[in-house]
C-alpha cells in the first residue's frame, strides 16, 4: 500500500467516524449539535504527513489527477445542489426572505467534505482497476 492509498483510507476512516459520531449524538442532542461530529473530518488534515518523501510514479500521478478531478466534480455538484436546495426550500417553498446565517458556511464545508471523501474513494477504486496513463 503506497502513501496515496494510506491517505485515502484515512479519508474513508475519518468520514466513517463522522457518520458514527453524528448517529451517536443525534438522539441525545438533536440534529444541530450532532452536526458538530463532522469536525472530526479535520483529522484528515494529517494526511499531509503520510508518506512524505515517498516516490510517486506516472501511475500514481495519473490516478491522483483522475481522483482529484472526480472529487472536484462531485464537490461542485454538492455545492450547487446545496445552494439551489436552499433557494428552493426557503424562498420558493416556504416563501421566506431570510436564510439562517450558518447555511452558507455549512454548504461550503459540505462541498469540501464531499471533495475529499470522493477523492479518497476514487483513489481506492482506481488502484484496483485497469488504468491508462494520461498521455495514452
Amino acid at each position, binding site marked *: 500500500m*503506497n502513501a496515496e492509498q494510506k491517505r485515502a483510507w484515512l479519508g474513508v476512516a475519518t468520514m466513517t467516524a463522522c457518520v458514527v459520531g453524528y448517529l451517536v449524538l443525534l438522539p441525545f442532542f438533536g440534529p444541530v449539535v450532532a452536526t458538530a461530529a463532522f469536525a472530526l473530518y479535520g483529522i484528515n488534515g494529517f494526511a499531509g504527513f503520510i508518506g512524505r518523501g515517498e*516516490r*510517486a*510514479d*506516472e*501511475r*500514481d500521478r495519473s490516478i491522483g489527477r483522475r481522483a482529484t478531478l472526480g472529487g472536484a466534480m462531485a464537490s461542485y455538484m454538492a455545492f450547487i445542489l446545496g445552494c439551489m436546495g436552499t433557494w428552493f426550500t426557503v424562498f420558493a417553498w416556504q416563501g421566506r426572505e431570510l436564510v439562517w446565517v450558518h447555511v452558507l458556511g455549512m454548504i461550503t464545508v459540505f462541498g469540501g467534505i464531499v471533495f475529499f471523501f470522493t477523492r479518497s474513494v476514487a483513489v481506492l477504486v482506481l488502484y484496483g*482497476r*485497469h*488504468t*491508462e*496513463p*494520461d*498521455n*495514452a
Partner: protein
Amino acid sequence: MPKITNCIRRFRFDHDEMTQEELANRAGVTRQTIIALEAGKYTPSLSLAFRIARVFNKRVEDVFQYEVSLSEDGPPSS
C-alpha cells in the same frame, strides 16, 4: 477496446530472475506499478514502455504487444 499485453514477467525470469523491485528501480517506477503491468491492470506510457524495454535490451514491440479486434480495426482490405 485495444489491448496492450506484455511479456515482462517472462523477460524478468530470462534475466536471472530479476525481481520486480529491481526492474522497478531500473525503470524508475514503483514495484506496485510493475505488479499492475504484469497483471494487465495498467497500460504504460510510451516513455515507460521504452525504459522497460531498454532494461531487457529488447525492442518495445518485443516486450509489449498491441492487440486490436477485427471489429474495431475495420474489415481487412483486399
